[in-house]
């Protein structure tokens, strides 16, 4: 298990007094300190890691958030922000000596502005609720993480969430216009708005995907888009991962950016089909779902081109949806891939590396070898268009060392992703899960520079410590790393 910062005994000793102080800011049920109730907050979507918080506070207004943060700042208490708690990387894992700041009560849609094609919402509103609120006018909010029924938009911003459609429509970062946020000092800052470009430094860009380490988001302005007229999909089976991978490369190089392009390997196909009975071909090695959206005339044209490319890459099976029901049936298995894997294994761990697509066959081969080495099965689903790989490692936490072996296997997979030119996380975030792997991708200097940015927002390091960065540094210490002639003073001393 990953080590979290040691709890501050002095803070723990003041627990009751801290809860009482918080109650002065957020009255009644907005402060939770009873052990039994705290358990509900002990983990997020990465449930292998659990830690009940010292106290939970559930404010309802920006002013309350500001007061809570100011109080924490003045008293040197750590704060972990939490949206809906669906993070798959442990971003909302509580700290034993920390306040868990839940934004669940920020659940109102404040303004839907069709003239400016945006919506202003509170951070606890779910991703799907935004699309639901604007669908009667033919609009939607584009990023669609698979947890969209539950995950909150504030959490989406904190994690820069993606989804199956982000190849064409972008991640959260590309679909928001502004935020209101509160710094740990209690200062309220507004970035962007309904206009398209932020002024000054792109702090909105830095906040997006900052995993709760820089500020607490209290309002979000998102772009909303008119829904495409129609969508159709192809379901194509291939005899090898190489053929499927080449087909994906041909589609992209051919100038087509599909709305979604998903690939599954054979174990994933079987698991999904067993679970969802969706009629996937079972004797192919790789299955590709390619979805095109837009006006019918465009979709039909592109479907024909993709079909030709699939056949040129020796497709074994090929279906084209002719109805909305059929299109959804192609997706049914893929969308159920995670529960399907849950059915064939007591536990699974979902990884999230991105690789250059051309490296896919090589990565899948190496992964098969790692599977043997660690003695654990792995199932692969893949956002093929953008190279975002989700290997699901199957294990049983009740068997001695399987969790430890799964973690080691996962770390090996992510090292492999970095080795072929990819990254540790494409959309789930670093959190606690990949924290200690950061040096695989970044040098000590790279990480120090990111931590200096952290210091600009949170000089005392009180917001979500123990996440993202493998080593905590005092800001003063980072500031002292002064160079002359490209040489660090005392270059022989370890910095991390």
């Amino acid at each position, binding site marked *: 298990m990953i080590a979290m910062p040691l709890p501050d005994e002095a803070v723990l000793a003041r627990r009751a007094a801290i809860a009482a102080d918080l109650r002065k800011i957020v009255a009644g049920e907005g402060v939770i300190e009873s052990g039994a109730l705290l358990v509900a907050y002990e983990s997020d979507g990465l449930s292998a890691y659990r830690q009940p918080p010292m106290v939970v506070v559930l404010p309802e207004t920006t002013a309350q958030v500001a007061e809570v943060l100011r109080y924490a700042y003045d008293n040197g208490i750590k704060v972990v922000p939490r949206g809906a708690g669906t993070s798959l990387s442990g971003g909302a894992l509580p700290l034993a000596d920390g306040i868990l700041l839940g934004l669940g009560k920020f659940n109102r849609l404040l303004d839907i502005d069709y003239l400016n094609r945006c919506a202003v919402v509170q951070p606890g509103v779910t991703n799907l609720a935004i699309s639901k609120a604007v669908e009667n006018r033919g609009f939607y909010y584009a990023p669609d993480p698979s947890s969209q029924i539950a995950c909150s938009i504030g959490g989406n911003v904190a994690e820069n969430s993606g989804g199956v459609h982000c190849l064409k429509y972008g991640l959260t970062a590309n679909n928001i216009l502004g935020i209101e946020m509160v710094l740990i000092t209690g200062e309220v800052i507004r970035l962007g708005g309904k206009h398209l470009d932020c002024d000054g430094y792109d702090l909105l860009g830095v906040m997006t995907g900052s995993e709760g380490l820089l500020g607490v988001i209290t309002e979000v302005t998102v772009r909303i888009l008119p829904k495409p007229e129609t969508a159709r999909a192809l379901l194509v089976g291939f005899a090898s991962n190489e053929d499927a991978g080449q087909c994906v490369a041909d589609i*992209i190089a051919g100038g087509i950016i599909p709305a979604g392009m998903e690939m599954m390997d054979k174990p994933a196909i079987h698991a999904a089909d067993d679970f969802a009975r969706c009629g996937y071909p079972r004797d192919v090695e790789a299955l590709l779902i390619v979805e095109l959206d837009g006006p019918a005339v465009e979709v039909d044209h592109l479907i024909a081109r993709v079909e030709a490319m699939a056949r040129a890459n020796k497709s074994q099976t090929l279906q084209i949806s002719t109805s909305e029901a059929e299109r959804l049936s192609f997706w049914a298995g893929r969308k159920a891939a995670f529960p399907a894997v849950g059915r064939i294994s007591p536990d699974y761990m979902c990884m999230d590396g991105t690789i250059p697509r051309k490296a896919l066959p090589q990565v899948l081969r190496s992964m098969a070898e790692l599977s043997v080495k660690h003695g654990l099965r792995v199932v692969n689903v893949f956002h093929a268009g953008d190279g975002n790989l989700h290997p699901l490692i199957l294990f049983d936490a009740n068997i001695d060392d399987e969790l430890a072996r799964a973690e080691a296997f996962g770390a090996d997979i992510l090292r492999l992703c970095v080795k072929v030119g990819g990254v540790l996380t494409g959309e789930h975030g670093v959190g606690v899960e990949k924290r200690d792997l950061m040096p695989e991708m970044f040098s000590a200097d790279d990480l120090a520079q990111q931590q200096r940015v952290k210091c600009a927002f949170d000089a005392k390091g009180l917001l979500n410590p123990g996440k993202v960065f493998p080593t905590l540094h005092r800001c003063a210490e980072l500031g002292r790393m002064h160079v002359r002639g490209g040489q660090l003073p005392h270059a022989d001393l370890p910095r991390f």
Partner: protein
Amino acid sequence: MADFFSPKSETELADAIASATSPFSVQGLGTKPIGHGVDGDVLSLKNFSGIVVYEPEELILEAKAATSLTSLERLVASRGQMLAFEPPDYSRLFGTKSSGTLGGVMACGLSGPRRLKAGAARDHILGVSGITGQGLAFKAGARVVKNVTGYDMPKLLCSSHGTLAVMTSIIVKVLPRPETEETLVFADLDDHDAIALLADALQTSAEISSAAHVPGEGTYLRLEGIAPSVAYRRDRLLIHMKKDGNVLDDKQSRKLWKALRDVKPFWSLKSHAIWRMSVAPGFAADVMQKISAQLSTRHYYDWAGGLIWLAVADAEDGGAAVIRAAVPSGHATLLRASESIKSKVSVFQPQPPGLAALTGRVKQAFDPRGILNPGRMYKGV
């Protein structure tokens, strides 16, 4: 006379910055004199030029910071691709010679008409390598299109005007070029009607990629994609609008949007102060009404009103007081003005105190000694 440094390697560059005791004015090819002047030696990136890697199937390209945009765009066009944010070329506006560099357009965070649909420069930057004001080399991001590992430093450096770090190499996303394009033109609309028409069109599923209004000339909607799709969407739009419009073909359309991108309507205005304003698109005509009532101006709208180009004649402050009072949310940047005007007003929108302080702390995190372009954006930053 300021000295001119043009380091030849990252090591030389890092050494120059680390050993500097006074400010540098950082530039690529020096084609975009945006921001306040910096009193210091010139640090030129001109030797950092060339494509590092281009992988069309992976949708990525990495180039050194001072790689010329012209050569870069020619290369990606040869593979049927483009920089989708449509980097503008302001050389004619500024009276400079070259069309600028990848690093320059990123450092200034500039995007063209297609920004409306495809996103801005910041949406297409995937990675950077650079040297901080401390002389430390660092990198962030990667050669993949989907990545959330660590803070999004590439976005932070984009539009930081060289005040945080010197970018040496940049990774960008490249996308397929549309097969063809057309533009619908509507005539004789006043500003309010034109902005309303653009907003209405953008609420349809016609996937309009650019939308502009040039008073007295026309109101424009651009459609891009495969030919049958463009034709279908054009016909649907005309039915929806219940309005007659002319159609510009592929060649005419490209010419029009290039002209609007590069601010051609203002090329002849040699002595005007030029502003670039970012406002909520639907409110653009209201903003302009307030400004026009008080100042002698020329203007046109891009990004469906989200971007207002404004030229102001004969105002001591370039119109700053009136313009900034008219922008309730959003911001106005004084892109071009005489040194005497620039010395009196803030080129960039002044920030509220909390944001200004945070901006100052971010500057400190990269360049605590104030070596890189100090004062270019804000005093003390």
